[in-house]
């Protein structure tokens, strides 16, 4: 259990990369990139977890009454989620244009930019 979350993070990163490299559809590749990115969420939050801790949000608990997990990694992950969503949007926009200009979204059929 002490390394399981980290292994899952690594697995997601590799799976996403494999998906991107073997993809036959650019939209699928964007989805794989999202999987790849979820590895960073898992790693960061796993790093900040503390056994028996609870969220560092004092709306319904008294300060100091329970051990807390690390709020910093949560803030980092939040930023990361936003980055992920925006990158997805921009890449999808580019895929739409690729489809328009090349008439295909299969990377194997894109015949430009060689050599």
């Amino acid at each position: 259990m002490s390394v399981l979350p980290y292994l899952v993070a690594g697995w997601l990163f590799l799976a996403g990369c494999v998906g991107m490299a073997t993809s036959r559809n650019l939209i699928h590749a964007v989805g794989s990139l999202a999987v790849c990115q979820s590895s960073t969420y898992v790693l960061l939050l796993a790093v900040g977890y503390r056994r028996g801790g609870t969220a560092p949000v004092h709306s319904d608990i008294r300060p100091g009454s329970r051990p807390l997990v690390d709020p910093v990694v949560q803030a980092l992950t939040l930023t990361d989620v936003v980055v992920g969503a925006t990158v997805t949007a921009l890449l999808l926009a580019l895929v739409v244009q690729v489809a328009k200009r090349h008439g295909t979204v299969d990377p194997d059929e894109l015949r430009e930019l060689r050599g």
Partner: protein
Amino acid sequence: MSPRTRLWVLACGVAGVAALLAVTVWRLPPFGGARHPYGERAVEAALASRVANAVASVNFDQRAFDTLGEQAILFGSVLGTVVVLRQTRDERRVEPEPAGVAGPVRRYALIALPVVLLTGVYVVAHGQLSPGGGFQGGVVAATGLHLLYVAVDYRALKRVRSVHLFTLADAAGEAGYLLLGTGGLLAGTAYLTDVLPLGTFGTLASGGTVPLLNAAIGVEVAAAVVVLLARFLDQAIEIVTSGEEGDRAPGTDGAPGTGGARPAGGTGRADGADGPHRTGRGGAG
């Protein structure tokens, strides 16, 4: 590379990276450990500035500069999407068709719409108290607005959505965040310093500038998501290139996305999608 070669190259790379990650991960401190020096300092600092949600305090106070960069990313990528999905010279717009949606779905959506918007506002407003914040609430509210498209039709959405106003709100949210930061400079300290009175712990106005920055982000995110989706919707529904489906005579096989195989009629919508159909308008480019 041929697919086969690529697979081999990939296999080598993945094996190498997997080995690297495995070796590295084994040296990490065990999952769930109790040593979080930065985290503990951050909680202390959050309580000292009377912000109940330490994550909000990190986001909008202690590491507010990260959030400044993050909202710049959002702002920039929305602008980028607007640029990339613009209507080019060889494209024109067609009017979306009305879509027939089953009655219960439409009723549900019209009732749910205000609930979603309220939830969004609630999530933004309580950002520094309970889980939530500008980003989460902004997305919820913006998504809620699109129930109009999903459960009514695109024309209903267009009636309430002025892309121009939302662009303005997007820029205003961005500028608001940046300008709130200069309060610190005016007070003679560092940029983004919390110079307002801190208020009472656990109330909506606690935490000085935190709720204001949070609200600025909320406005920006909600507006940005609307603008972003507007571009995608325009592309998927209204904009056609010459030679694309919008050009052909109506009635050949129905609107795109609905296919021709389906028998018409029934209880559901008559013609599910706002596909482009031939109109006199067009050639706007």
